[in-house]
C-alpha cells in the first residue's frame, strides 16, 4: 500500500464515502465508470477490478475479453454533486490485461507512454485548453432541432440569463474539484460559452478535460438544459473548438522561450511548431474525430483550415501569442484545430509526438503567414504552398492511415481500431439522405 492509497482509504473512512467511481476513457473519448463500495477498495488497490471490456469502444481483444481497472490514487476526488448523506468519490484508472501488462487500448496509458518518452529527453508538456460549448433547451436537443438558451453574444453581460448561471455553477464545481479556471465568458454565438482552464501538466489536463465534460453536461442536465461540445451544432453561426496552448518545460525552464529571438521563440519552439505543422494533416482524424468536426473547420473565422502559423492571424493553425515582457514562463504556442469531442489523451499524445519529431529531426520553421487565407482562392493558396487540413473525416482517415508517426504514437491496436471504427462511421454518414439534399433537390428534380 502506497502513502497515497492509504490517504484515500483513510479519507473514504473519515468522510463516510459510500461509493467510489472508477473512471476510464474509451478510445473514442467517452468517459466510462465502474462503481465499487468502500469495503472493496483495499483489494482493488492491490488487484484492480476485473470487467468485460468487449462492450467498451476500442477495448475488444482477440483472445480474451476481460481487463483490469487499476485506480490511480493520486486522482481521488470527492464528487461535489453527490448527496450529503451519500458521499461519493472518483479516481481515474489505468487499464491492464489480466497478466498485469498495460492494456494497448487504454488511451490514458498511451498518453503516459508518450509523456515518458518526452521526459527521457527532459521535457514536460503543459497544456491549457479553451473549451467552447453550447447550451440548448433539452427537449429541443433531444428532438435534434437545438434551440439556444439565449440569444446573447460575445462578452454580453447577461447576468439574469440562465446559461450564464449554468456556467457560474459549473466553474464553482470545477474549482472545488481542483480544476482551476482562468477565464470564462459568453462566446460569439447564441448560448455559446467558453471556459479556459489554467495550464497543468498534460496528463492531469486530459483527466481534467474528461471531468470538465461531465461537469458541464451534468450541471446543464440538472437544470433542464443540454450542453454540447459538438463542433458545429447550428448552421450559420460559429462552431465550438478547443484551442489549446502548449509549452514544454525542462525542469523549471520554459524551453519555448528565447529572449534574444525576435519572436521570443527558442529553436526548440520553432522545431516543435514545424513538427506540428508538418504532421498536422496526419493527426487531424484524431484531433477532429467526428463527421461534424469538418463543418467547423471550413469557413468559420475562428477555425483554422490552413496549415500555417502566425502571431496574429485567425486563419492560422498555430498561433504564437505575443507575450507580455519579462514573462519567460508564459512562452507558448496555440494549436487551434482541436475540438472538444477529441479524446484528449490521444490528441495530446499526437500533438506531442508531432512536436517532438520536429525537434528530433530539426524541421525548419516555415515563414510566418500574415495573409488572410480566407480571402484568397485555392489556386493562389496552392501557388503559395499553403496546405489545407483535410476537408472531411474521410480525407483525414486517408491521411492518417499513411502516417507512421500516428501508428507509432497510438500503437497498432488503437491505430487500427480507430481507423476501422471511423471508416464505418463515415460510410454510414455517406449512405444517409441529409436534409440538405431534400431541401435542395426534392422540389426541382
Amino acid at each position, binding site marked *: 500500500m502506497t*502513502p*497515497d492509497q492509504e*490517504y*484515500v482509504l*483513510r*479519507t473514504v473512512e*473519515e*468522510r463516510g464515502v459510500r461509493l467510489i467511481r472508477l473512471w476510464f476513457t474509451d478510445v473514442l473519448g467517452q468517459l466510462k465508470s465502474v462503481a465499487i463500495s468502500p469495503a472493496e477498495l483495499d483489494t482493488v488497490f492491490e488487484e484492480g477490478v476485473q470487467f468485460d471490456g468487449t462492450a467498451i469502444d476500442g477495448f475488444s481483444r482477440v483472445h480474451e475479453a476481460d481487463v483490469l481497472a487499476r485506480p490511480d*490514487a*493520486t*486522482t*481521488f*476526488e*470527492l464528487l*461535489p454533486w453527490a448527496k450529503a448523506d451519500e458521499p461519493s468519490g472518483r479516481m481515474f484508472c489505468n487499464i491492464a490485461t489480466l497478466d498485469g501488462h498495460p492494456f494497448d487500448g487504454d488511451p490514458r496509458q498511451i498518453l503516459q507512454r508518450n509523456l515518458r518518452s518526452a*521526459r527521457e529527453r527532459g521535457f*514536460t508538456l*503543459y497544456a491549457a485548453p479553451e473549451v467552447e460549448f453550447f447550451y440548448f433547451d433539452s427537449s429541443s436537443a433531444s428532438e435534434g432541432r437545438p434551440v439556444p438558451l439565449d440569444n446573447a453574444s460575445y462578452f454580453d453581460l447577461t447576468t439574469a440569463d440562465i446559461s450564464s448561471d449554468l456556467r457560474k455553477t459549473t466553474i464553482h464545481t470545477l*474549482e*472545488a*474539484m*481542483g*480544476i*482551476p479556471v482562468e477565464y470564462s465568458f459568453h462566446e460569439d454565438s447564441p448560448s455559446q460559452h467558453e471556459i479556459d482552464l*489554467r*495550464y*497543468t*501538466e498534460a496528463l*492531469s489536463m486530459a483527466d481534467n478535460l474528461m471531468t470538465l465534460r461531465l461537469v458541464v453536461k451534468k450541471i446543464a442536465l440538472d437544470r433542464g438544459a443540454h450542453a454540447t461540445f459538438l463542433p458545429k451544432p447550428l448552421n450559420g453561426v460559429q462552431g465550438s473548438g478547443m484551442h489549446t496552448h502548449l509549452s514544454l*518545460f*525542462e*525542469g*523549471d*525552464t520554459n524551453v519555448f522561450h528565447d529572449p534574444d529571438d525576435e519572436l521570443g521563440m527558442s529553436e526548440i519552439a520553432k522545431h516543435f511548431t514545424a513538427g506540428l505543422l508538418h504532421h498536422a494533416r496526419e493527426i487531424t482524424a484524431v484531433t477532429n474525430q467526428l463527421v461534424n468536426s469538418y463543418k467547423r473547420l471550413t469557413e468559420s473565422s475562428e477555425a483554422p483550415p490552413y496549415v500555417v502559423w502566425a502571431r496574429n492571424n485567425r486563419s492560422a493553425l498555430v498561433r504564437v501569442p505575443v507575450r507580455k515582457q519579462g514573462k519567460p*514562463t508564459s512562452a507558448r504556442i496555440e494549436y487551434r484545430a482541436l475540438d472538444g469531442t477529441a479524446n484528449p489523451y490521444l490528441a495530446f499524445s499526437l500533438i506531442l509526438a508531432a512536436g517532438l519529431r520536429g525537434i528530433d529531426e530539426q524541421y525548419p520553421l516555415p515563414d510566418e503567414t500574415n495573409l488572410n487565407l480566407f480571402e484568397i482562392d485555392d489556386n493562389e493558396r496552392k501557388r503559395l504552398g499553403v496546405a489545407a487540413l483535410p476537408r472531411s473525416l474521410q480525407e483525414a482517415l486517408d491521411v492518417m492511415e499513411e502516417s507512421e508517426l500516428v501508428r507509432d504514437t497510438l500503437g497498432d491496436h488503437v491505430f487500427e481500431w480507430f481507423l476501422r471504427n471511423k471508416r464505418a462511421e463515415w460510410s454510414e454518414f455517406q449512405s444517409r439522405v441529409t436534409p440538405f439534399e431534400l431541401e435542395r433537390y426534392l422540389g426541382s428534380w
Partner: protein
Amino acid sequence: MEPLLVFPNPPPAELAQALDLGGWAWKGASGLNEARADQPADGWVGAVVFADTDPEEAFRICRSIRSGDIHVGSILLLINGGHLASLDFREDLFDDFCLTPFHPVELEARLKHLFRRSRQLARAEVIEYDALAMNLETYQAAIDGRPLDLTFMEYELLKFLASHPGKVFTRETLLSRVWGYDYYGGARTVDVHIRRLRSKLGEEHANLIQTVRSVGYSFGSSRWG
C-alpha cells in the same frame, strides 16, 4: 498529542520560537513540582532542558528524571559552549546536547533525531490556523468547519505549509520536501498545486497561501512577526 517538557518556564524566546516553528507541542515547567503536576498520563515523551539560566536546577531536574521521579522518554540538554566542563561525570543525565547559542536548524535536527526515533507522539497531530484545521492523524482538513476535499499531494503540500506559518519557501524547497527529489515535474508542479489548493480553499481563504514574488510561497503569518 503529547507535549515535550521544556525547562525553564518561560523558556528563552528563541527556544520557544524554534519549537513552535518546528511544529512541536511543548509545555514549560519552572521546576520539578510543576513538571510532576502537569505530567501526562503516559509520562513526558521527552524533555528539553535549557541549562544556561539556572544550571543547578537544570541538573536537578535531569537527575530526578533519571531516578524515575517523573517519567520522561529522552532528555536534550541545551548548554553554553563555555560550560562544557560542567558536563563531566554528568553524561548519564542527558541523551544528547546542543550548544547555545543554538542554531535553529541544528536544534530541529537534534529534536527530530531524539524524539522522532523514540516515539512520534511529540509532533502536534492537529494544525490549527485561523479558519484552517488539519488533523494529521485522520488526514482530514477543514476550513471554517467545512471539510476540504484534497488529493494526497494537495494535502501534503498544505500540511507542510501550514506547519510553518509565515515561513517563505522556494518552489525548489517545496518540491524537494513535499514531492521528494525524484519528482520530474519541476517547480511548475508547485505552482499548479498551489493554484489547486487556493481553488479548494475558496475565494475567502485563498489568501492564506501567499505568493512571494520571485521567491516562492508562504502560509499565513508567523506568530513571531
